[in-house]
């Protein structure tokens, strides 16, 4: 093995270098010039995102513990884009609220460490690497959730996250050890050849699934979601709902479709039931939410339920539609969180009632929010429609018409609460509406990227075709 094979880990190495570079910068930059750290971090991560798209080799490392292919690379790039947007949207928040507490650099370092964990989790070739990645991706986020040290609710959210995450990963680890006990291997390739459907493997699988279900916030592992989102800083709530969820969805799908394929008869039924209850619980609880963060929390639970419709197929169409949906979901949800962030930063208001009459004072923000909500609701011509339609097509291709029917019932329910926000912004007139304000350049850029993404990704079909081709080559 020569050093050039380490280039397979290009994403990981560059991100690690950036993290260390920021540490050096933290030490060497004077306290009164700390805001240059924000610019530096965003700039470096922007470069990293672009480099991530460049051509690279694919293959295995460390005897199969780490492996990468084109689909995995693409998905890492999707996560990168999400984090980049998130950095742009939270840049102002860090400059205004965090820097003077001398904790700016740590924010980026923790965030990047967590992302690094996700890279390893996605690229894992065995359960050990997978578990390391899972832990590395979760622990820093708990620290980040408690980052608003001036607010008690933020610390509470950090504690809630770390406790439930620890429990979940413990359960997951127990499941993995049972799988190891029955198959005698932790390598994915070997397990997929040995594994058979018996009671012990099913128990192991269910426990393992519960751990990942926690990260995706599937019902009934969703109880932490709303509380943590409400307390955590908005950018961290966005991170949990988009990046963390996206990565977990991806790895769960890969494992189900390859390693655990022999258990398909089992997990099909599990996913069928969980998809239904996740959609219904997420949507019904979202109906009455007033706080925008809790609102988006339940909406993101419901969206996870829709994602399961693509996952139930167990075939190439499922991979393509799920990856495509996650890509769209990154843009749509980040647009929604971005607007909430912009308003919260300026005014400190986070309730739906405060949004009344917003269109007449801040038309651009309202339009971005409307695009985001329409995309989440799945209304053409914005991207969310295409994502949902294809997910439903994937489920219908396997003959799950009843499931699709229940899903479209849920789409209609979700439309109601998404329209509630549109109603507040556009329909209501309000003397005390949030006055006009100008966001700074980073926030504007962050929102602009999401808005363009929402408008373009759906209509521009070559993007889906590309993902479709990747997913084909993935299963071969």
């Amino acid at each position, binding site marked *: 093995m020569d050093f050039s094979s380490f280039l397979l880990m290009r994403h990981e190495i560059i991100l690690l270098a950036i993290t260390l570079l920021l540490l050096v910068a933290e030490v060497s930059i004077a306290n009164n010039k700390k805001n240059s750290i924000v610019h530096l971090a965003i700039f470096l991560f922007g470069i990293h995102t672009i480099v991530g798209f460049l051509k690279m080799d694919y293959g295995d490392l460390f005897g199969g513990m780490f492996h990468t292919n084109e689909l995995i690379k693409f998905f890492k790039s999707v996560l990168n884009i999400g984090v980049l947007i998130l950095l742009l949207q939270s840049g102002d928040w860090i400059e205004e609220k965090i820097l003077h507490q001398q904790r700016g650099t740590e924010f980026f370092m923790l965030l990047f460490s967590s992302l690094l964990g996700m890279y390893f989790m996605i690229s894992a070739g065995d359960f050990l690497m997978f578990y390391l990645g899972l832990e590395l991706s979760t622990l820093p986020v708990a620290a980040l959730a408690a980052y608003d040290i001036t607010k008690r609710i933020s610390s509470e959210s950090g504690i809630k996250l770390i406790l439930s995450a620890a429990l979940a990963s413990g359960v997951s680890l127990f499941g993995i050890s049972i799988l190891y006990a029955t198959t005698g291997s932790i390598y994915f390739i070997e397990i997929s050849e040995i594994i058979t459907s018996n009671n012990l493997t099913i128990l192991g699988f269910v426990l393992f699934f519960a751990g990942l279900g926690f990260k995706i916030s599937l019902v009934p592992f969703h109880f932490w979601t709303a509380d943590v989102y409400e307390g955590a800083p908005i950018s961290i709530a966005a991170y949990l709902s988009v990046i963390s969820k996206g990565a977990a969805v991806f790895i769960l799908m890969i494992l189900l479709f390859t390693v655990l394929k022999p258990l398909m008869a089992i997990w099909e039924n599990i996913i069928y039931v969980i998809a239904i209850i996740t959609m219904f619980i997420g949507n019904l609880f979202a109906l009455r939410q007033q706080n925008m963060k809790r609102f988006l929390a339940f909406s993101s639970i419901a969206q996870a339920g829709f994602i399961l419709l693509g996952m139930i197929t167990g075939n190439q169409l499922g991979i393509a539609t799920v990856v495509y949906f996650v890509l769209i979901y990154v843009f749509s949800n980040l647009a929604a969180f971005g607007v909430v962030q912009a308003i919260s930063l300026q005014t400190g208001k986070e309730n739906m009632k405060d949004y009344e009459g917003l269109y007449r004072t801040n038309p651009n923000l309202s339009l971005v929010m409307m695009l985001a909500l329409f995309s989440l609701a799945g209304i053409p011509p914005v991207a969310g429609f295409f994502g949902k339609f294809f997910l439903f097509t994937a489920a219908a291709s396997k003959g799950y018409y009843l499931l699709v029917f229940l899903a479209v019932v849920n789409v209609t329910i979700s*439309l109601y609460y998404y329209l509630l926000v549109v109603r507040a912004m556009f329909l209501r007139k309000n003397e005390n509406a949030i006055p006009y304000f100008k966001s700074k350049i980073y926030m504007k850029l962050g929102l602009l990227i999401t808005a363009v993404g929402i408008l373009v990704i759906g209509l521009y079909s070559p993007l889906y075709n590309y993902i479709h081709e990747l997913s084909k080559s993935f299963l071969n």
Partner: protein
Amino acid sequence: MDILSLFIIVPIITILVLVFTKNLKQARVVSMVGSSVQLLMAINLVFAYFKERAVNSSIMVFTKDIVWFEPFNIHYTIGVDGVSVALLLLTAIVVLAGVFISWKMCDLPKEFFISLIVLSIGVYGFFISLDLFTMFVFFEIAVIPMYLLIGIWGSGPKEYSAMKLTLMLMGASAILLVGILGIYFNSDADGGALTFNILEIAQVNIPIESQKLFFPLTFIGFAVIGALFPFHTWSPDGHASAPTAVSMLHAGVLMKLGGYGVFRVAMYLLPLGAIDWSWVFIILSVIGVVYGAFSAIKQTDLKYINAYSSVSHLGLVLFALLMLNKTAWNGAILQSLSHGFMTALFFALIGMIYGRTHTRDIGKLGGLLKVIPFISVIYVIAGLASLGLPGFSGFVAEMNIFVGAFQEDNMFMRVATILSVSVIVITAVYILRVVGIMLMGPIKKEAYLKLEKVTWYERFGILLLLIPIVGIGVAPLWLSDMILESLDPFIKGLL
């Protein structure tokens, strides 16, 4: 650029220009120019269609096909036959009339016209699509602007009505989605590739079990927007709360999407399902026809009267389609057109009356014929057209429907037909009642003596709608021939 895609591109350009307008004056001029161009294109299309039809005998003409999502075999496929040409013309006329009627839209004018034109894009796109996916996309694009249009610019309980309308229509389209997916995954029944193309699917023999399963989903999905009983409840509330131009566009054009979709998708692609299920929906549509008419009698709000009358008239469209014969279908399409013009005209007039008297309660109005004669006379004419007086479009349409319906000679069909025919009498009751109370009689309020005269733009909007009503009534054959020859391929599977 081909002649049909322009119907989508011109409104998009109009919207892009509208974004840069600064005030009401600019916005309305831009919208008027854009919609006028659309109307000229639609008229041009009619002539082009006749010319093309003489040399081209395929089911659809001016077809164009662009691959969109290759893995799913989704195409942007467009094309028209006589039915869609007629409906495109209807849309262009009603949109332009709607722009004229909204000449004085003060609150957020730019946004109003943009939403209106987005809605029209959805309608145009729906009528030219030959691909189920594209059609579905346009269907939803047509529905969603209604929420903003009613919610922002409406009156009365507008938030409630807007939400009810949007949820019911989007719920219906969600059911439709399942139906469309069902059709899609059965389109390889004869061993071909999966496809969304309507003309290709029509050649496939979809298994009868699937047809029976997916026909009701597809039918209900479309028929909700065509106000099928008992899913019509969004329509009276929605129309009553909507601003004038939106009521016109919605009752005049958007509700036609239902009948058109049933005819073009549900019945054409799932004929065996249609034959199997028709009795259920005949019962529902007859209830809708009679119930709508009776409800209209009891209403006192002008817009509610008209909305229930729409439920009744569009019930006839569905009823005629379910008769599954050519004469009735011809009547159904003619009724769609006739009702489109007529009801748009009604809503325009109601908007004008309301704008002047500030009430829509017929009990408070009286003697309007003496003070605003132009509007009142047109109201009488529209009323007469609505109750099916010979010489107007309504007569031609209803004549065809009932003649067609009476061709079915079993007891069930006969009873259904007789019940539906009775609606002609009930319609006369509610139309004449309004005319009697509101237009005749003494002037009930001092203030009514000084009502504003009709303005040039209102006159223009009215004439745009009146000409086709009289035109179809006096010379129906050119239109009815154009429709009839297009029906053949669609009825074949049902015989």
